[in-house]
């Protein structure tokens, strides 16, 4: 028998790129933030991470095998990314069963019920975070105080996040001013390294920025969404800060606290739930930035990144329809008959 040749349409070569590589690239980018969270929150952080990852993988396997009955997809790395990000979005002292519930919501409700990878409308991790926040508000907002692993294990006490302190102080009766609250708030250096209360993955700005730079270098994300989102936050909060610095926090504070960087770098840039073209991505990022500050200043919750991203996720199909790439040979606005 002679050689059986293959026939297929062109192109006959393929870049070495694959979905799996992209997913594992994201995992590598999350390593610094993982290390920092373990450093500040100790073995608890490790427990949450492991539990979340295992639960996400398990649910993905279970649903794919028995409900969708398709090819097994747990190797593609997407459930792994979801698991780590879910862990990043919860306090490190969250009870284990709540994490499992979160994983079920993320994988089962937000991802697989739409048909699996690539078909979900909302960011699965944020759906789970918001679900947990609304269902278990106390546990989800009792943040352990960071205590570096080098100092040995101390009894984990809980406290509020910088944004929580701010919201509570400004809303108190009589309202306090920012300068009155300042002693309670962490310094910029602390928020930069991660020595503050908060969800375990979102505390350290430097670790997140490192991961972001890695993903930019590897072309996993593009600059549009993070830059437009952070810029909008800076400008918008800057305006209010300029009007009344006693009432409104400064832009840097907004940028470095809460889930802002985690959201801008890892959550809003999720390929599946963000727009396709660079124009659309700029609009998306700007929208997230605006909504975040709106919620932070006037909303009932101290933090608004998750809600802002989920809200913008909902309009992504519209953005995709409105922002087409620039077509070759068609001048914008000119219809060619």
């Amino acid at each position, binding site marked *: 028998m002679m050689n059986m040749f293959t026939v297929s*349409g062109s192109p006959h070569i393929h870049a070495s790129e694959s979905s799996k590589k992209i997913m594992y690239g994201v995992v590598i980018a999350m390593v610094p933030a993982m290390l920092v969270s373990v450093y500040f929150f100790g073995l608890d952080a490790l427990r949450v991470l492991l539990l979340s990852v295992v639960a996400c993988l398990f649910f993905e396997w279970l649903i794919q095998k028995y409900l969708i009955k398709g090819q097994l997809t747990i190797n593609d790395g997407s459930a792994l990314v979801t698991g780590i990000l879910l862990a990043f979005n919860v306090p490190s002292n969250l009870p284990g069963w709540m994490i499992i519930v979160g994983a079920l919501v993320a994988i089962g409700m937000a991802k697989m019920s739409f048909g699996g990878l690539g078909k979900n409308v909302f960011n699965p991790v944020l759906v789970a975070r918001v679900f947990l926040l609304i269902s278990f508000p106390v546990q989800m907002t009792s943040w352990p105080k960071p205590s570096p692993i080098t100092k040995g294990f101390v009894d984990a006490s809980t406290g509020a996040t910088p944004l929580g302190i701010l919201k509570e102080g400004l809303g108190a009766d009589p309202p306090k001013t920012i300068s009155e609250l300042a002693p309670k708030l962490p310094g910029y250096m602390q928020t930069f390294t991660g020595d503050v209360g908060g969800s375990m993955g979102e505390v350290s700005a430097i670790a997140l920025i490192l991961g972001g730079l890695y993903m930019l270098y590897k072309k996993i994300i593009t600059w549009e969404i993070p830059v437009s989102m952070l810029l909008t936050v800076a400008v918008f909060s800057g305006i209010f800060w300029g009007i009344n610095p006693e009432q409104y926090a400064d832009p840097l504070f907004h940028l470095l606290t809460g889930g802002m960087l985690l959201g801008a770098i890892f959550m809003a840039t999720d390929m599946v739930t963000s727009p396709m073209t660079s124009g659309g991505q700029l609009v998306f990022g700007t929208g997230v930035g605006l909504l975040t500050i709106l919620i932070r200043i006037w909303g009932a919750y101290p933090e608004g990144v998750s809600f802002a991203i989920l809200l913008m996720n909902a309009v992504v199909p519209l953005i995709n329809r409105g922002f087409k790439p620039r077509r070759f040979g068609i001048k914008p606005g000119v219809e060619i008959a």
Partner: protein
Amino acid sequence: MNNIVIIAIAALGSLGLVAAVILYFVASKFKVYEDPKIDEVEEALPAANCGGCGFPGCRAFAEATTSSAKKNKSLEGLNCPVGGNDVMQTVGNILGLEVEMTEPLIAVVRCNGSLANTPAKVKYEGATSCAFAHALYGGEGGCQYGCLGLGDCVDACDFDAIHMNPDTGLPVVNNKCTACGACVEACPRDIIELRKKGPKDRRIFVSCVNKEKGAPAKKNCSVACIGCTKCDKVCKFDAITIDSFLAYIDFSKCTLCRKCVEVCPTEAIWEVNFKPRKAKPVQPKTTAETSAEKASARKPATKKVSAEKADARPAPEKKNEA
């Protein structure tokens, strides 16, 4: 307090009144008269919206029949292939017209280039689409007329009437076929044809569309029509024509005498749902295209064959053994 209640009732009441008046005028101004018979006809139709009649849906067909009945007093040229004679009779009754009986048709796959009969010479990789593969190359087996086996016909069928047989790589039509013609349209190689269903589902056809000369056709496919004209010579009813080395049986002239089947040297002519011949020792060319139960219930004689190959054409290997 009372005042508020009265004002509210008065305001809402007058608002409602104004809206009602506007609605009334709009409704009467823009009223479109529709023949109530259209609804009746539509009700009688199968509601498959398959487009087999040539109209974009059952509603459009109902409109067409109704207007044709009004204008021309006939339903000529209008036929719902899915509903068949029963439905057309009902439509005729509604519209008060006589309807001619039409012969029921069925889709017939005219290729037997199965995996065994037409061994693959190259391997195809790419989109599961016959239309694309047809534009790309000749076909895995080398026959540029034969079935590509990627199932565009199966995708086109709204009635679950055509399926791929994984053993042969060819589509198989079952009795659910309504002759809507969607698969005929979908096949890029014009392999599927609507043919007369035949008495007791019996039909004879050339299961090949290869227009090559005998030798090259036979080189790629062991059961190709080689255009030898034997069938043409044996046919007393002038039902067979040969064009570009390919025989075609006109089903309106064919009397199902089966003479051509006997003389065909490549077994390219098929007879389906006939009783097995007595004279010849083993000749299991007779097959059931219908489902097993139906075939066996009606024709106990073909039971063996039908049971062997439930709803599929005979596997070519079997044929060759015989």
